[in-house]
């Protein structure tokens, strides 16, 4: 497997990967229940809702109640999947998640769509860029941010069998499909490409941009060790350390504030074990704005060219 094997022709939104997998889970396991706060269509939960009306709970625009109900549903061996936008899945209900789900060790799957800048035209009120940080800080919480439709499908399936609270982050835009739909292991990074000059660790939509950046860098004579870090907590320390031992520098890329996200999670691993220069491709502590997803990624420093630039800088700093 290398970046040259990845030439996707199909595109789909990651939220559809969630919706399609949830529908399958409904057929496979009667314990699976779903809750949604008036965004069934946006979260692609209609198939589940229509086929399993007894196991689907429409809570209305009341996310705090939804999180509490999800926690309560686990008592009696249900596996609740909550669905709403990432903003309303985290910041709006942080204390409910903290006390009733994370501290209470409840087996709730918090499934969050429309994360990050690529939500697009709705603008900053809905474009949460702090959610990974919020969820990472909670003890007992697993945090996953898959890269495409297939990986979101596989991750949704995988978290059903994981005992404990999970935050699953995905998004709105149609995005190239290049990952496996079947092989997914929580906490185990996907090694996309072998290289020796720089490690690039990316999560979510930014993984595809990292693939494109790696192809450009290769043309410039810089080979990239590329990791898809879909699980941000618990993070795959072994994959990070093995890679930076070889390359001696790292670039992280995420659709999130530079504070609290993947970059900090990686830095925590390297600084404690094997300090190396690191460049952060992330939003520079600001809110977003309205616009087309790819235009926004460009404006906020998350374009393919930004990853290329960061990689060159990381290599120079070695």
């Amino acid at each position, binding site marked *: 497997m290398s970046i040259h094997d990845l030439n996707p022709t199909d595109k789909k939104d990651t939220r559809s990967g969630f919706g399609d997998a949830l529908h399958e889970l409904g057929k496979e396991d009667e314990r699976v*229940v779903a809750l949604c706060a008036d965004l069934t269509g946006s979260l692609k939960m209609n198939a589940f809702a229509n086929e399993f009306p*007894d*196991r689907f*709970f429409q*809570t*209305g625009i*009341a996310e*705090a*109640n*939804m*999180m*509490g*109900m*999800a*926690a*309560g*549903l*686990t*008592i*009696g*061996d*249900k596996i*609740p999947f909550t669905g709403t936008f990432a903003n309303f899945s985290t910041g709006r209900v942080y*204390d*409910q998640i*903290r*006390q*009733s789900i994370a*501290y*209470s*060790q*409840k087996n709730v799957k918090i499934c969050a769509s429309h994360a990050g800048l690529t939500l697009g035209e709705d603008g900053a009120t809905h474009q949460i860029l702090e959610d990974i940080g919020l969820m990472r800080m909670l003890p007992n919480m697993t945090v996953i941010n898959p890269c495409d439709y297939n990986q979101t499908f596989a991750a949704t399936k995988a978290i059903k069998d994981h005992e404990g609270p999970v935050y699953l982050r995905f998004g709105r835009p149609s995005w190239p499909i290049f990952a496996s739909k079947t092989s997914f292991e929580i906490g185990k990074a996907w090694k996309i490409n072998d290289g020796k000059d720089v490690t690039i660790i990316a999560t979510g939509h930014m993984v595809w941009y990292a693939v494109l950046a790696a192809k450009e860098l290769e043309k410039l004579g810089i080979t990239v060790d590329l990791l898809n870090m879909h699980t941000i907590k618990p993070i795959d320390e072994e994959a990070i350390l093995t890679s930076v031992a070889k390359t001696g520098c790292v670039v992280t890329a995420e659709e999130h504030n530079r504070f609290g996200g993947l970059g900090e999670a990686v830095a925590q691993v390297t600084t404690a074990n094997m300090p190396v220069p690191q460049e952060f491709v992330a939003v520079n502590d600001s809110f977003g704005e309205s616009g087309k997803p790819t235009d926004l990624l460009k404006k906020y420093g998350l374009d393919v060219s930004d990853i290329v630039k960061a990689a060159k800088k990381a290599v120079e700093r070695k």
Partner: protein
Amino acid sequence: MAEIDFLTKRSSQVRRDIVKMVHSCSSGHPGGSLGCADFFVALYGEMMHYDPQNFNMDGTGEDLFFLSNGHISPVWYSSLARSGYFPIKELATFRQIDSRLQGHPTTAEHLPGIRMASGSLGQGLSVAIGAALSKRLNNDDHIVYTLHGDGELQEGQIWEAAMYAPHHKVDNLIATIDYNMRQIDGDVDDVLSLGNLKAKWEAFGWEVLESNGNNMAELVATLKKAKGLTGNGKPIVIIMTTEMGQGVDFMMGSHKWHGVAPNDEQLAQALSQLAETEGDY
């Protein structure tokens, strides 16, 4: 009635436990705990079906209870211990380091009887609705009970949950409100009035009952009436009038014993007013 006599005696013992617990760690919330002692004793001594020797998280085939106003943990811990969930002597560890009896209830220490952490207010009704729906899916016809402070009703999440339960006919649910009309900063009517509480719950679509929460016979009768009303398509709420600090004269009639522990002298004075009926821990 022998049953009411037994429950009343147990209430006295639970009240002794409460003042001893908060005294020994010089912290905790005696006021609301004392006010709700009769309710807890009625619930665990008369109403609920449960299996303390085989506690498990799912509680299938059992009635469930969720304490939403977690700060009155002393009354819950005493009631659980006196109902056989864990050794009565463990009450002595309340709020001490390495204890299962945390300041606010938690599942993290695996104390039998507790299924949800509470302390941050307003969350218990939502949790109870979820648990009640889980029972419905499992064809388990047992009941889910909750308790809330009246001040806690100022939290918005309560009303999200209050709107949900009638709309979805969650009728295996009995919520209870400790209507002592006091909160930390003073009288509820001064801090943020609840207005016509009965009318509010009725407007949300609940079956509303009222009871004196410190009269054991009336309370048990009301709880039995509430149980008889389950399964009729509506959730039930009991507005239970209590006296904060009930049973200890100098703690009654004010909000100031909400979260203050008695000193040695005050403990002795309190214990002299509460009969030891089942043996102190």
